[in-house]
């Protein structure tokens, strides 16, 4: 590949995601129209519900937090060449870890209790990523199928706990007791639902940015992901670094689970989130594996989801159609690097036809 001229803006980078999102909007619009609803009317409610006023903006941000942090988790493993499909399982295990500590009254200050919950989640999530990480790095197993299977195990295990030892006494619901007040994440603005998980997300994204941009560790991890063999010949312990990246990835996903229970429900509820692992993958790729861009990508997903639920209430249009928009956005970004190849091929064909 030829190096690009510095200074010239790569318009494709901006245009293609927009084209993808527009295609999704048009396709979604057709389906909305089939239902007899004016698509522009529906999209107005979508936009208004997503960012129309302070309350809807806060709801969008609340949805952004878990998606974004899991997105960062996916970035962390993917940079080292590991596909962590198990974000959802690690998320649930992290939530379990936090719930174990958070429902226990401890004679320590509130901040300490919150930190302890997060540490528990990091340990649980990291340990849950240990097995697939080890198998991938040291034994050459396919990490995709193992993390995928572990997702189901984690979900069922959580619900088993919530029906047994961790169930709130005296209830029939599969849920834990409420967290003690010292273990809840405080609100950013008094009286509002937005919790400090948003701060944790932003700081974490910045940390990852610094890691990959300015540190040798980040450089080494990226090298392993780009070319494992070359990295090994340069004296790197690639297996070690891959395992490390997977464990950290699991820890980050686990932390996301803790933040969600400590900030939103204040207790662990069976199946309280679904598909977050796959959403994380979509966000990581939409952001082109750039931690700072993942803030935008996660907000895009979060705002769409939140806007769609208000749209569903206002117009009766099913909120699930936003998945179409998300999928088109992701597809347009991941197919982008292949476009020059197709152009070249088409040009070659034209030349051939003229000859």
């Amino acid at each position: 590949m030829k190096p690009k001229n510095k200074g010239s803006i790569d318009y494709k980078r901006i245009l293609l995601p927009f084209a993808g999102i527009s295609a999704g909007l048009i396709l979604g619009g057709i389906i909305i129209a089939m239902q007899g609803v004016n698509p522009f009317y529906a999209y107005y409610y979508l936009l208004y519900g997503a960012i129309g006023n302070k309350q809807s903006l806060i709801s969008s941000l609340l949805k952004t937090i878990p998606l974004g942090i899991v997105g960062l988790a996916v970035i962390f493993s993917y940079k080292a060449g590991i596909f962590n499909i198990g974000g959802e399982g690690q998320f649930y295990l992290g939530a379990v870890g936090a719930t174990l500590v958070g429902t226990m009254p401890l004679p320590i200050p509130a901040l300490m209790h919150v930190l302890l919950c997060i540490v528990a989640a990091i340990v649980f999530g990291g340990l849950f990523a240990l097995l697939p990480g080890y198998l991938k790095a040291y034994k050459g197993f396919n990490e995709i199928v193992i993390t995928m299977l572990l997702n189901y195990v984690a979900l069922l295990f959580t619900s088993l706990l919530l029906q047994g030892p961790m169930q709130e006494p005296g209830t029939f619901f599969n849920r834990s007791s409420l967290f003690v007040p010292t273990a809840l994440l405080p609100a950013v603005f008094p009286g509002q639902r937005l919790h400090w998980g948003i701060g944790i997300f932003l700081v974490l994204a910045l940390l990852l940015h610094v890691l990959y941009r300015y540190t040798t560790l980040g450089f080494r991890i990226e090298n392993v992901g780009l070319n494992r063999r070359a990295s090994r010949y340069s004296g790197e312990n690639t297996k070690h670094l891959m395992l490390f990246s997977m464990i950290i990835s699991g820890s980050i996903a686990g932390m996301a689970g803790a933040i969600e229970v400590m900030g939103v429900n204040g207790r662990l509820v069976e199946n309280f989130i679904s598909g977050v692992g796959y959403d994380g993958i979509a966000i990581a790729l939409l952001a082109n594996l750039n931690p700072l861009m993942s803030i935008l990508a996660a907000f895009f997903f979060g705002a769409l989801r939140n806007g769609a639920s208000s749209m569903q209430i206002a117009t009766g249009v099913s909120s699930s159609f936003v998945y179409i928009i998300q999928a088109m956005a992701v597809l347009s970004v991941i197919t982008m690097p292949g476009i020059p190849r197709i152009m070249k091929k088409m040009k070659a064909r034209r030349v051939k036809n003229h000859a």
Partner: protein
Amino acid sequence: MLNTFLGLVFSTAFLASSISYATPFVLAAMGGIVSERSGVLNLGLEGMMLTGALFAFMGSYYTGNPAVGVLTAIVASMLLGFIHAYSCIELGSNQVVTAVAINIFALGITSALFNALFGISAGRVTAPGFASIRIPLLEKIPVLGTALFGQNVFVYLAYILVPLTYVLFFKTKIGLNIRASGEFPKAANTMGVPVEKVRFYSVIYSSAIAGIAGASLSIAGINMFIENISAGRGFIAFACIILGKFNPIGATMAALLFGMTEGIQLRIQAAGIPVPYQLPLMFPYILTIVMLLLVGSKFSPQSWGVPFFSDDDQ
């Protein structure tokens, strides 16, 4: 208690239900295995099944003929297969991520379309489905007869497809080309195998079969569509392929295992045996992981998930 349990498990009814539960897995795996063997990782089976399930329902609902439903299911899931193939083979995009996008897309379009056509609270809309067909004579075999030969048309299709896939892979030139494309695409290409074309058709084929597998969820028995009706079955079929070492017979065995545990779980509940329902549900996943550990990791095609471009050589 153990006796009642064993009695429940080893009965004709249990065998019959295990086979019918396993059928969607078997079908999807028989399609998927062709794509995987050709070198294209197809995790999009899930979305293709889901799409197949909805379009089978719609085709059957609007025409009153479940066979038309199967055809519409095939066409719709093949469209997704085309996107997957184009993105992975022509553009060389990451195959896992493409599949993730396809699965999200399928979830969105099926739910939105279903709600748009049948209303948001459409729970009980039914479409004509396939009834069980009893095969004369064969059905009379003791114990096994009714279990094996009193099933619906999808089960019989699975019976045919498994040996057919085996023969395709190991006894035909096409199968050899598919395997060569997945193992050593460069060598295959040098020998005149049109690797990209082989891979393209393999993915399209796998999506068509996944569509049929989806149809077997919606119009063979319950005759309804429910949002996200596939509920991860495509992922399980993918796991079955790997657990079965990319061999059609092995994958079928793995699929039967999953079908049986689904049957056991329902039976345990029906019999009122005091076991938390999560335990039998968890069992096949843990067993699969353990068996994967025992089987080892050396069976996947060498160039599985690696794009190949023949014109890079020129």
